[in-house]
C-alpha cells in the first residue's frame, strides 16, 4: 500500500472544517459585532459602496482559499465553493449573534436587518475562512509554499492586502480614527508613517516570527525594502483609503484631512499586512 498523507475529504472532515469555520467567524467577528458604529453604518452606509465592498470581500475570500488552502489540487470551483461557504457561515454567524445582542430584531425593517448583517458578515467570513484553514490540523504547508512560489510577487503581495483589509476594517468604523487624525499635527502624521513602514519591515524580515520571509536571494536591503516593505505600505495606504471611502469618511472633507486619516488607518493596516504574511 502506498502512503498517502492527503486526507480524503469526507463529510465528517468537511463538517469538522465547517465547525472550525463557525469558530473562526465568532472569534474574528466579535470585536466589530460589539462596536456601536457598525450597527448604524449597517443602514446608513451608501448601498452601492456596500455592494462593492461585499464583492471585494468575496474576491479576497477566493484568494485566501487559494493561498491558505490545504488541498494541493487547485481548482477554481473548489476555491469559489470555499469562498461561498465561508460567506454563508459569516452571514449566519453575524445574524445569530446580532440577534442575541438585540441589535437586530423582527420588528425592524428588513433593509435595516440586512444592512447590519451584510456589513458584519465581512469580518466574520474572513474569520470563517481562516478558522477553517488555520485552526485545522490537516493543513498542508507544503502546498501553501508551493502556491506562494508559483504566484511569485503577487503571492507575496496578496496576503498583505488581505491582512491590511481585515485590520483596517476593524478600526475604521470607530469615531476614534477621525478624532486621532484631527488632533495630530502634520509632524505627527509623518512620524506615524515612518513608524508604520519600520514596523512592517521589522515584523516581516527581522524579528523571526514563525513563517518569517527570508529576503529574496541576492537581494540587498534596499531592494527588499523597496520591493516588499514599501509595496506593502503602499497597499496599506490604498486599502485604508478604500475603507474610509466605503464608510463615507472622505465625503466633503479636505484633502489634507483625508491624507491624515489615511495615514492613521494605515498604521493598523500595515501591522495587519505584516502579520497576515505570518498567519496565511
Amino acid at each position: 500500500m502506498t502512503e498517502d498523507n492527503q486526507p480524503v475529504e469526507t463529510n465528517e472532515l468537511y463538517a469538522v472544517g465547517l465547525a472550525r469555520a463557525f469558530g473562526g467567524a465568532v472569534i474574528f467577528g466579535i470585536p466589530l459585532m460589539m462596536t456601536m458604529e457598525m450597527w448604524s453604518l449597517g443602514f446608513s452606509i451608501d448601498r452601492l459602496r456596500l455592494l462593492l465592498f461585499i464583492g471585494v470581500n468575496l474576491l479576497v475570500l477566493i484568494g485566501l482559499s487559494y493561498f491558505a488552502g490545504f488541498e494541493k489540487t487547485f481548482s477554481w470551483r473548489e476555491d469559489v465553493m470555499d469562498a461561498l461557504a465561508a460567506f454563508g457561515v459569516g452571514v449566519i454567524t453575524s445574524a445569530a449573534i446580532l440577534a442575541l445582542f438585540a441589535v437586530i430584531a423582527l420588528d425592524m425593517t428588513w433593509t435595516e436587518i440586512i444592512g447590519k448583517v451584510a456589513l458584519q458578515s465581512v469580518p466574520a467570513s474572513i474569520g470563517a475562512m481562516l478558522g477553517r484553514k488555520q485552526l485545522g490540523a490537516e493543513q498542508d504547508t507544503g502546498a501553501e509554499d508551493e502556491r506562494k512560489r508559483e504566484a511569485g510577487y503577487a503571492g507575496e503581495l496578496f496576503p498583505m492586502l488581505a491582512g491590511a483589509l481585515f485590520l483596517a476594517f476593524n478600526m475604521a468604523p470607530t469615531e476614534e480614527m477621525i478624532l486621532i487624525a484631527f488632533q495630530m499635527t502634520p509632524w505627527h502624521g509623518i512620524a506615524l508613517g515612518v513608524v508604520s513602514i519600520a514596523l512592517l519591515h521589522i515584523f516581516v524580515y527581522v524579528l523571526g516570527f514563525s513563517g518569517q520571509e527570508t529576503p529574496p536571494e541576492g537581494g540587498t536591503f534596499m531592494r527588499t525594502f523597496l520591493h516588499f516593505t514599501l509595496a506593502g505600505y503602499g497597499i496599506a495606504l490604498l486599502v485604508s483609503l478604500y475603507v474610509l471611502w466605503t464608510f463615507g469618511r472622505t465625503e466633503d472633507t479636505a484633502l489634507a484631512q483625508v491624507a491624515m486619516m489615511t495615514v492613521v488607518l494605515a498604521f493598523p493596516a500595515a501591522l495587519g499586512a505584516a502579520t497576515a504574511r505570518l498567519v496565511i
Partner: protein
Amino acid sequence: MVQQRTADRDGTQQKANHTPWLEWVASGIGLLLTLGIFGSIGWQAFDDAGAPPAIAVDVTRVVPVEGGYRVEFRARNSTGSTASQVEIEGKLAGDGAEAEIGHVVFDYIPGHSERKGGMFFTREPRQESLALRALGFADP
C-alpha cells in the same frame, strides 16, 4: 500486487474528483445568502435611497403614571435615507397656563423604519393641546 496498485490508483482518482455532499450544501447555502444580500441591497440602492429623510411623529398611548402622564409615541422615517440625531419636541399647551415642553433625541432613525419613545408631562395631555414633531436631523 499489480491488481493492488491499480485499485489504489482508482481510489486516488475518485478521491480527487469526490466532493462531499456537505460541501455542496454549505456552498449552496452560501450562494443563496450571497445572492439574497446582493439582490436586496442592490434593490435598495436603486429604490429611493436618494431622498432626504422625512419624519412623522404619532402619539400611540397616554398612560397616567406617578407624578403625571407618560405620552408614548413613534417617529417614522418614510424615506430611504437614514436620519441621525433626530430631535423630537412635544408641546403641551395649557388653558392659560404655561406650555410644558418635552424633548427626546434619537441617535438614528434608519430609512423606512420607526423608533419608539416617551415623554412625561405633569398635566393630562388631551388631543387638541398636545403637539409632537421632529425638529431636525443630521446626515449620518
